[in-house]
C-alpha cells in the first residue's frame, strides 16, 4: 500500500490527552464530531489543515503515551491522517492503531520537516521524501501485526476467522 500526503510535524512524547482530550471523549461516541478536536492541545487547527487533502502526522519519540483510549487513533483516522510516523511509539497506542487500521511507521523522523511531501510504501518499508529527494527505510511490521492490518484491523480479522487465527 502506497500513501501520499504532506507531513505535519510535532514533537516528542505526544500523549493521548493531546491527541484527544478526556473532556471530549465522554461527550459522545461520534468520532467524526470528535475528530474536530484532534491534536487540539498542540495545534488547534490540525483538523482544518489535514482533513481536506489528508496528511501524515510526523512526531519524535514515544508517540501516543498515556491512556488506552482508542478514540486517539480513531480521531486521527477521521481527520484524514493517512499514517503516523514517529521515532518510537507507546505500546497501547501502537496496538490500537493497528487494530483500528491506522498505519504506524517507526522511522527516523529527523529527516522530515513540516510541509514535506511524502510517499509511504508500507510493503517496501520505505518513506520517500519527495521534497528532499531522500529515502528513509523502516523495518516491516511484526508478522502478527502485518496480518491484522492486512485483514483490515482486528474486527475484520474476527469476522473473517471467528476468533484469533494468528
Amino acid at each position: 500500500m502506497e500513501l501520499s500526503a504532506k507531513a505535519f510535524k510535532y514533537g516528542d512524547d505526544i500523549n493521548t490527552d493531546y491527541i484527544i482530550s478526556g473532556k471530549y471523549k465522554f461527550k459522545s461516541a461520534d468520532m467524526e464530531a470528535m475528530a474536530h478536536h484532534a491534536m487540539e492541545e498542540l495545534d488547534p487547527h490540525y483538523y482544518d489543515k489535514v482533513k481536506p487533502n489528508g496528511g501524515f502526522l510526523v512526531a519524535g519519540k514515544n508517540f501516543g503515551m498515556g491512556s488506552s483510549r482508542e478514540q486517539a487513533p480513531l480521531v486521527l483516522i477521521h481527520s484524514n491522517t493517512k499514517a503516523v510516523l514517529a521515532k518510537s511509539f507507546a505500546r497501547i497506542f501502537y496496538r490500537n492503531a493497528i487494530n483500528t487500521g491506522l498505519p504506524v511507521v517507526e522511522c527516523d523522523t529527523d529527516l522530515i520537516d513540516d510541509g514535506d511531501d511524502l510517499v509511504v510504501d508500507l510493503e517496501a518499508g520505505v518513506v520517500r521524501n519527495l521534497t528532499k529527494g531522500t529515502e528513509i527505510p523502516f523495518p516491516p511490521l511484526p508478522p502478527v501485526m502485518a496480518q491484522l492490518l492486512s485483514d483490515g484491523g482486528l474486527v475484520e480479522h474476527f469476522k473473517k476467522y471467528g476468533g484469533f487465527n494468528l
Partner: protein
Amino acid sequence: MIPLPGKTIAEKIFSNHSGTDARAGDIVVADVDFVMGQDGTTPLAIRALANMGVTEVFDPEKVAVVMDHSSPSPLEGVSALHTMMREFGKQTGCTVYDVGEGVCHQLIPEKGHVVPGDLMVGCDSHTCTYGALNVFSTGVGSTDGAAAMASGKLWFKVPDTMKVTYEGALQPGVFSKDLILYLAGQIGVDGATYEAIEFHGPVIDELSVEARMTISNMAIEVGAKAGLMKADAKTLQWFEGRGEKTPNPQDPDPDAAYARELTIDASAIGPQVAKPHAVDNVSPIEEVEGTPIAEGVLGTCTNGRLEDLAIAASILKGRRVHPDVRFIVAPASRQILLDAIAAGYIQTLVEAGAALVTPGCGPCVGTHNGVPSDGENVISTANRNFKGRMGNSNAFIYLGSPATVAASVIEARITDPRKYFAG
C-alpha cells in the same frame, strides 16, 4: 546445549496461560482470566463486538464493566453511554459496577475478580495496578478488549523485564508515591516502553499491599506494560475472604534473565513532586515548596485507598483547609468510603473543609468533580499531569503523595509533609 535461564514473573504467567515455554520476545495467544472496561472505553468495545457480530461474552463471570470516569453522569451524552453499558450487562450477564461503586482498579481486585498468578486485560491504561498483587495485568484498547471479551484470548508479545530494587528504608513522611515518582524522574516517561518492571527489595517488602498498588499503578507512566511484584504473606492475607478463586503466586526464578537492573537507595529519597506538564518532570519537594495552589485532590486509582485517606486525616486532624483552597476527596470505592467512615477519617477530612465526591475517578480525567480555572495550580495524588488532563489546558497540575497534598491544602502552597511526621 546451554541451558535456558530461569524465568521472570511475566514469562511464568505467560507460559501458564499460553501452554508454551514463553520467553521474552515471543508472541503468544494467551487465555485471559478477566477482562474489564470503564465508561470511557467500554462503549467502543461494545461497538466493536457488534461489528464482529458477537452477542455474547466468552464467560460472563470473567467480564466486568465499570462506570467510574464520569460518574454520576454530568452530561446527557455520558448518560447515553452509561445506559449502553447497563444494557450490555443485561444482554451478556457480565458484572456491571454502576455509579458510586468506585474506580475500576480498586474494584477488580477488591471484589476478588483476580488473584495472584492471573493474566488479565483492561480497557484502561492503569490496569497495570494489579501487578502489585502478582497479576500480569495490562491496559489495552477497546478493540483488543472486545476480542478478549469475545474469545477469552488475546495475543501478546512477552515483554523483557527491568528489575528495580529499592534498598534501604523510607524516611518518615515519605511514601510509595514518592518512590514511583522518583523512578519516573530517573528513567523518564518512555524509560520502560515495551517492558515489564519487577519491583523488589526490602522497601517493597515493608510496604502494605495498598501502598504497593500505588507503585504498580504508575508503571504505565514510564511506558511499562506491567509493574509486577511477588505475592508474599501480606498479599495472600489481603485476598482472604475476597472470593472463590485460589491464588497461584508466581515468583521469578533466582536466575531469571532481566534486560536491565536498577537499584535505588530509598533512604536517600524525600517527598517528590512531578511538575507540569509531564510525569517525569520530577523534583525533590524542596525545589517547589511554596508554589501557591488553588485545588488539592486526594483520591484516584493511584491514591484513593483507605491508607491514603488515613494519612491525610492524620495530618488534617484538628486543622483546617486554607480558605483559598478547594480540597476534593474521592475515595476509590464504596467499601473504602464505608471503612473510612467507620474509622472516622471522613469525619476528620470533611470537618477540616474537604469536599467529598462520589467514589470513582474524581476530577482526574477532567470530566467532572473539580475542573480547575485558568492559571490555577493543582496538587493531586493522581498519576497524570498532562496539560489539559483535568479539563482545562490553562491549569497546572503537580503530583505528590497523599501526605504532600494534605500538608499543602492547609497552607495553600506546596508544603513538605515531613514536619507532621517528625519525632
